[in-house]
């Protein structure tokens, strides 16, 4: 894993010696592929110049020595729970993936970091750690996958007490599967892809697939009210969780049964879901579904807004590209691509497919085939790697999301994009920014819209500050247009 960027150390976008964009490693379907359009897109969209490359500074010696609470350490030792105060362990757990956090790291700036890291192995370990922390007045920050984008992992610089990072990565087991009720008891530290793989081995799945599922943990999903790409079939995290056990400084909270719904006052789960980092550990049980073969496809519609679609067309092989751009008359720069995933029993999938394709045909769209769909789906996982590529070339960017009623979707998209462009201009950004968006989740009463915003920051003295000002303005615009502060990222920042 990278300490100052997204994902696996072996996987990254780079421009090879021939100047072609390439995705390294072997882990993804894109791995090892040349992406021909990416260079042009970077240069065209951001005015990025491949000659201008930033050099990340790798300097771990800047980390301040740990401030340990001796009594706490002593008692912790007696419990036998493993811990560390090595600099790299602490730095690794001092940040999530907010832009300012990664930017500072790449710049070699390391602020307040946890003073030590503990690795509980089970629920009882967590109970013990929390007790000790209370007793010795030590701060705890729970750490799951480290993919937070709400600054929840940031250590307050003014904090004078010892800060302990509680890393749940060792609590990664499925304790049991209840096949009669289709539930499972899972520890909070399990990472999305492991959970899915292990369940698949038994013929089940949860269907919860956020973009970060390779790295984010179950505990994190609950703490942020996460949402996944397949939510229309399986539901969001709050629909999947049946039972939670939470350790608090005042004791353990859990419900007394596993009934699927209760009507005994407000649901205690709703105080826990989305409480963002205030929790220590969560253990839970998930609904399971029969796992079936799925097929995938892709549709594009004309006359909508252009985003990463030119990258999409660069994947298309010659003949297909000719068919789409010349025969069907799509402009690769004004093409709208929708990646749709159909999952479930075969009949249902076919039925869904037909319905969607009929709608698409009505508006001049066409199916682009399963291969492209798979690649499009894969793109959502590698988008975060693209951010790091941008940062290599003076381009910073982020995504943020909102949920909004249907009738306002188009208005909010237009207004927020326009606001971003306007604010960038006002704030002195020298190059036109990328300001684009897509609908990622749909509900009966509205949709979740993702905004992508990035710009070339050459010529700016404090790019992160500019970024934050523009993002703040964009959020203000979202609120004024009837959108929510966040759909699933969490909202303690901004």
């Amino acid at each position, binding site marked *: 894993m990278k300490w100052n960027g997204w994902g696996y150390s072996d996987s990254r976008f780079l421009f090879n010696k021939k100047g072609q964009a390439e995705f390294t490693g072997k882990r993804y379907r894109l791995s090892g592929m040349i992406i021909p359009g990416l260079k042009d897109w970077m240069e065209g969209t951001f005015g990025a110049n491949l000659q201008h490359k930033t050099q990340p500074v790798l300097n771990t010696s800047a980390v301040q020595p740990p401030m340990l609470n001796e009594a706490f350490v002593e008692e912790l030792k007696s419990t036998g729970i493993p811990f560390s105060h090595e600099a790299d362990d602490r730095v690794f757990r001092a940040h999530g993936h907010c832009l300012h956090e990664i930017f500072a790291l790449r710049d070699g700036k390391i602020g307040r970091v946890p003073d030590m890291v503990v690795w509980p192995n089970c629920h009882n370990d967590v109970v013990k750690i929390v007790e000790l922390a209370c007793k010795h007045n030590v701060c705890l920050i729970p750490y799951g996958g480290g993919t937070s984008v709400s600054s929840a992992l940031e250590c307050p610089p003014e904090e004078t007490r010892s800060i302990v990072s509680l890393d749940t990565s060792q609590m990664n087991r499925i304790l049991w599967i209840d096949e009669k009720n289709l539930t499972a008891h899972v520890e909070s530290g399990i990472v999305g892809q492991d959970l899915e793989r292990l369940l698949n081995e038994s013929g089940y799945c949860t269907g919860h697939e956020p973009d970060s599922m390779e790295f984010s943990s179950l505990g994190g999903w609950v703490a942020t009210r996460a949402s996944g790409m397949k939510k229309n079939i399986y539901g969001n995290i709050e629909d999947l969780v049946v039972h939670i056990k939470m350790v608090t400084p005042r004791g353990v909270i859990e419900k007394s049964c596993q009934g699927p719904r209760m009507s005994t006052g407000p649901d205690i789960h709703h105080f826990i879901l989305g409480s963002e980092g205030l929790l220590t550990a969560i253990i839970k049980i998930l609904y399971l579904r029969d796992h079936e073969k799925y097929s995938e496809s892709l549709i594009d519609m004309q006359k909508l807004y252009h985003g990463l679609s030119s990258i999409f067309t660069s994947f298309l092989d010659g003949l297909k590209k000719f068919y789409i751009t010349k025969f069907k008359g799509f402009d690769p720069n004004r093409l709208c691509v929708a990646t749709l995933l159909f999952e479930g029993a075969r009949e249902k999938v076919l039925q869904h497919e037909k319905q969607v394709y009929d709608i698409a045909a009505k508006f001049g769209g066409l199916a682009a085939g399963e291969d492209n769909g798979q690649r499009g789906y894969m793109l959502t996982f590698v988008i975060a790697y693209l951010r790091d590529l941008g940062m290599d070339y003076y381009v910073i960017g982020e995504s943020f999301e909102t949920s909004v009623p249907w009738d306002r979707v188009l*208005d909010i998209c237009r207004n927020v994009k326009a606001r971003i462009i306007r604010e960038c201009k006002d704030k002195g950004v020298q190059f036109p920014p990328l300001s684009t968006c897509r609908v990622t989740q749909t509900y009966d009463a509205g949709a979740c819209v993702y905004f992508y915003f990035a710009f070339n920051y050459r010529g700016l003295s404090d790019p992160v500050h500019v970024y934050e000002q523009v993002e703040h303005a964009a959020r203000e615009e979202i609120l*004024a247009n009837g959108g929510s502060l966040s759909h699933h990222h969490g909202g303690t920042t901004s």
Partner: protein
Amino acid sequence: ILTQTLFSPPEFVDILEDKRHCNDLRFAFRTFSPPPYKGAPACSSAELNQAVLESQYLRYVIKEVALETESSVEEVRDKVCKIMWEMSQNLQLRFIRLMAFTFRKVFKRLFSAIYVNMEGLQALQQATQEFPVILMPNHRSYIDFLVVSYILFNYDIPVPVIAAGIPLAGMKIVGEILRRSGAFFIRRAIGSDKLYWAVLSEYVRTIVRTGFAPLEFFVEGLRSRTLKSLPPKLGMMNMILEPFFKGEVYDITLLPISISYDRVLEESLLAHELLGVPKPRESTAGLLKASKVLQENYGCMHVNFGRPLSVRQLCEGKINRCQYNLIPRDLPQKPNAEAQACGSWLAHMIVRLQEEGALTSPWSLMACILLQVPTTVLTEEGLLFHQLTEQTLWLRQLALDFRAHLSWPDSDVMSSTVALHRSVVYRKAGRVYLTRNDELERKHSIVPEDDMMRTAAAFLMLASYRNQCLHVFVRPALLALAMSIRKSTRKDELLTCFCFLQEVFSNEFVFIPGKSSQDFDEACSLLHECKAVHVSQWEVTDSDTGLEVLSFLQELLKPFIESYQLMFRFLCEERDCVFREKDFLSGVRTLATKLIVSGELHTYEALSSDMQKNVLSSLRRLGAIIKIEISENNEYKVNKSAVRRTGDMLGKCSKSPPPRSHQHPDIFWVFFIFFSCCSWKNPSADCPGCT
């Protein structure tokens, strides 16, 4: 014409002189290719109407109205279709071409030049591509109506749809031509016709939302009969702003346009209308008859396109747009107090910008001078021409000090100006005399009242031309007036008096609500800059050199003071506490005529129906008279003591009517403050005589 071009402000270009299109026909058939609007795809008029008819909003209102009137939805829908049929425009390029052809012919005959600022046009062309644009010209003449379209056609800018009064639609053929040139027609007294409001507002909003075309409307609501700015009407403004408040468009661009005429086509018509001669109904036949006005020369016309204003920027911090999040945007929702205040502020600001963009003509300054000369000098002895010239030049400097934009053609300006306005004054043997209508034929009129009416018409024309530049002087003039009324130098006392005057005259002069202290500061600094007063932190004192300026400014407003005093006096002397508007108008007219003939009243403006109506609204606002709602004849109940007090507060600066004696003048101010406070709360409580 060449010299005129040289001396007109450099950024103005005469579009009639444009050599590129010498031939009218070729001009009309020029390639018209405005850059497209980026916000939404283009749509046709029919599609626009369809969108309005099928809107969720109208469907909702139709159901509501059907329920309320106990008729079927289909019946109400039919009504809506009829309203739409009556209202909607049908913009077609062919008719724009026809219009351009005709106008070019007519304009070339009427005007020696039509000046347009290119800079403003370039900014406008840019703006029309980005966001919906609202063109907001002032309205002084029927010519205003299509001149903007003509200019935009000339410069490859999308031609607007224009909000027009319904009488124009009634004109045979012409109405249809206007409709096809982009006019849509709005009924005059809509009142509480819910369905009509709904159709109109949805129509306007849809135009804005789709960016169908720039929308042109006159924020003053109607043609100003007095050539003065009118207090803006807010209904249309609020409709236009709504799509922005609701996030349906990213921004809206407001564009104030100032149209200034050297000489207004309708000048004598307006004066007679003000004297109570009814306006001829708009008809095609009337238009043809009016073609004799085409024989004359009307000098230059300036069309000054203001800087595009972003509603988004202007409203920042003034509007919480989240308030629209909790009700579906398609449902009718009255703008709340915040939104209304914002609309009102914007509308008033636009009027102010129109005033600032207007060009002040030498004739307008001359009119100021001429109105301060005793009547008999103008009607009998004649004013020495060189005296007029000198004073006008003096006033020119003052206007420049007050940051007026002047259109000052050439060195021969005085003679040519007087010559252009021979309908009002003429020059004979080095003296200037008032021209009176049909003077030669009826020289020896027996009835003095008849003679007086002719003089009155000429004076009201003069007054209208003075009004063209009144906005330049009004703030300093109100301060000068306050100084003479209060006889005080203390800033706070002067400010109170200044505010009171603004309040009393708020139908005469347009001020942005809630900005009185800024207006006051502006007045102080302008007078200070021209060295008429000394301004310190607490005091404003007149300087030795400032007497000329101060007395000119006081004299400038004197007709208003005198006329108001006269009408106050009339109300107080009436036996009854209840009066009808009609009786008031005729009564005041009789009284004023009598006093003018007897030489007691020195201004003819008290005869102006416009001013008479303004007095009524002013008194209503001050709570001194109350409209009796139940009556259909516009009946009012008057609180005489309140009217008297208001009159007293206007001060003793005028000689007639004689001031009432009061030992403690300060008591008025206590009264004013006290009285204006309580009268708002309970306007009917203060009339002991009538219950």
